């Protein structure tokens, strides 16, 4: 049986601790909260339960990084990054530029699929892309996660890994879907929006609308690879960056980066520009397949 993303993370963590690394976070032993992604290991083995003071936990991780322990810092709700971020952005990300002292923290920041009110729903990776020195990515498959970890180990930069709980059960890969030489549009989905984008592309194909999909794993630094330009250049209506975060974040930045090199328009679709509430009808979820379909059809109709 293939390994899931959750099992992959657990195994990576286990191996890391065995080789002298460290991992830390809050409520690690609470079943289900970090989705079974943490191995059953002890503090002596390097697995550290942090106190409930979010603001100091990230600083403690930075201290571990300065000591060469390459800590995995687990943020159980990505929304908590709003209070965790200061020392990651202002110290870990700047340390190499300022003092030539690497500060490699592997930040696991876990997004939920809504249903949790104003604080923690969905992803918040956009704000983390603002600071130079921090690599930001959003793996969704076992091999992608392994690739991200390997890259982290080979480098000495801090990494922000925008995880999504919907990825934890995934045990397959999601290659780009470049089925059409001249598609109507190319979708550039991020994180769990990739699952919705695949569904949407399938639904649209039944209506004769052809969508290619280029999955975005690395969000910062974002490199406009030739494949991206070819895909958007071949598309009649350009592309859409589809995000699980608010649109005024990395999605607009990526769309802009692509458009600076392409002759086609690249639009964005993400969370609505409003605060989520707890009641289901007040939630603010990432674009559903239906919403993506409507957005695409709207572009085509209003050309």
């Amino acid at each position, binding site marked *: 049986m293939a390994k899931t993303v959750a099992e992959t993370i657990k195994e990576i963590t286990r191996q890391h601790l065995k080789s002298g690394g460290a991992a830390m976070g809050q409520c690690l032993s609470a079943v289900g909260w970090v989705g079974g992604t943490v191995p059953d290991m002890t503090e002596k083995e390097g697995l550290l339960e942090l106190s409930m003071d979010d603001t100091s936990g990230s*600083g*403690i991780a930075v201290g571990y990084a*300065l000591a060469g322990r390459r*800590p995995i810092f687990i943020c159980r709700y990505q929304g908590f990054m709003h209070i965790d971020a200061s020392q990651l952005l202002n*110290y870990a990300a700047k*340390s190499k530029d300022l*003092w030539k002292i690497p500060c490699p923290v592997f930040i696991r920041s876990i997004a939920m699929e809504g249903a949790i009110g104003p604080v923690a729903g969905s992803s918040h990776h956009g704000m983390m892309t603002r600071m130079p020195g921090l690599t930001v990515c959003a793996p969704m498959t076992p091999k992608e996660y392994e690739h991200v970890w390997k890259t982290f180990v080979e480098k000495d930069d801090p990494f922000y890994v925008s995880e999504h709980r919907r990825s934890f059960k995934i045990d397959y890969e999601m290659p780009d879907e470049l089925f059409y030489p001249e598609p109507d549009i190319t979708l550039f989905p991020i994180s769990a929006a990739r699952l919705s984008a695949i569904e949407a592309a399938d639904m649209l194909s039944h209506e004769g609308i052809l969508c290619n999909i280029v999955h975005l794993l690395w969000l910062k630094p974002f490199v406009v690879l030739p494949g991206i330009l070819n895909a958007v250049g071949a598309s009649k209506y350009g592309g859409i960056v589809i995000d699980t975060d608010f649109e005024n974040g990395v999605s607009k930045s990526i769309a802009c980066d692509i458009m600076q090199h392409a002759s086609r328009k690249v639009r964005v679709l993400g969370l609505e520009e409003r605060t989520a509430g707890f009641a289901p009808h007040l939630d603010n979820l990432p674009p559903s397949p239906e919403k993506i379909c409507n957005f695409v059809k709207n572009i085509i109709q209003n050309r």
Partner: protein
Amino acid sequence: MRSRDQGLIPNISKEFPREKTLDMFRRMCLIRYFEFNVKSTYDQGLMPKSPIYLSMGQEAISAALATTINKPALFGQHRSHDIYLAFGGNPEKLIDELLGWPTGCAEGMGGSASIHCPEIKMFGHDGLMGTQVPIAVGYALATNKMTIAFMGDASAEEGYVLGSIGYAATKKAPVLFVVCDNNLSILTKTSVRRSWTMADHANFGMPSVEIADDPWLIMHHVNKLKLSLPAIINIHTCRELWHAGTGRDGDSEWNRFELTTNELVKLELGTEADRIMRHTIDYLDKLWNEKLKEQK
């Protein structure tokens, strides 16, 4: 109650051998006369007009710690010329840093506020008040090596500082928390900002003391506290100059450097102290003059 004699133990200066006392005083002189040169250079417009944070008046703290603790990891804040110099950072590289040269200790990136020195395990500060404290706690837990986390009385109020001190207490991290308490956050006094003290209310069950910046008193307590880490030492001191820059708002509550030299005379070390002082002044004046000539 804050005073120049807070916690003072009679005849405490006699507890230490002559060499130790003179070593401590040598470090105090190095800090003080280095800062005099910074002030003079800055006031003459001979260095970049970026914010500078001078340690003048607070020399005794770092000098006493450096004399007492052997090679700790050091996490300071924006005002840390004293830490750098007391623990053996190269003065020449600090001058270069303040002049914005690539030969500086942080190659010009750190300025006055974000200096560092890997040779003495001194880590740089990022400019956010108090972040050095949780980072120091993480470093100490990761290495299990003695670490000093310096903070001011203002940064001690940061949530993440208190949270990480609590965590250090829980996990028995080998950290000495040193509060350099000059009673001022820029110009706002501590009593306006809080009704509690670090030693009595924020020690989380750790050994803690609250004393004045008498260097022998500091050495006395640090010698004990370093055996039972984590621990807190809140030291009342006087910042002679402005928070940032070289200005002065009248006389400070006390002048620890003067009090220390008086005590050295009582210890019959006046002649040696005077020689150390003059030697340090000559050395630093020469060094600064050479650098400023180079600059031209």
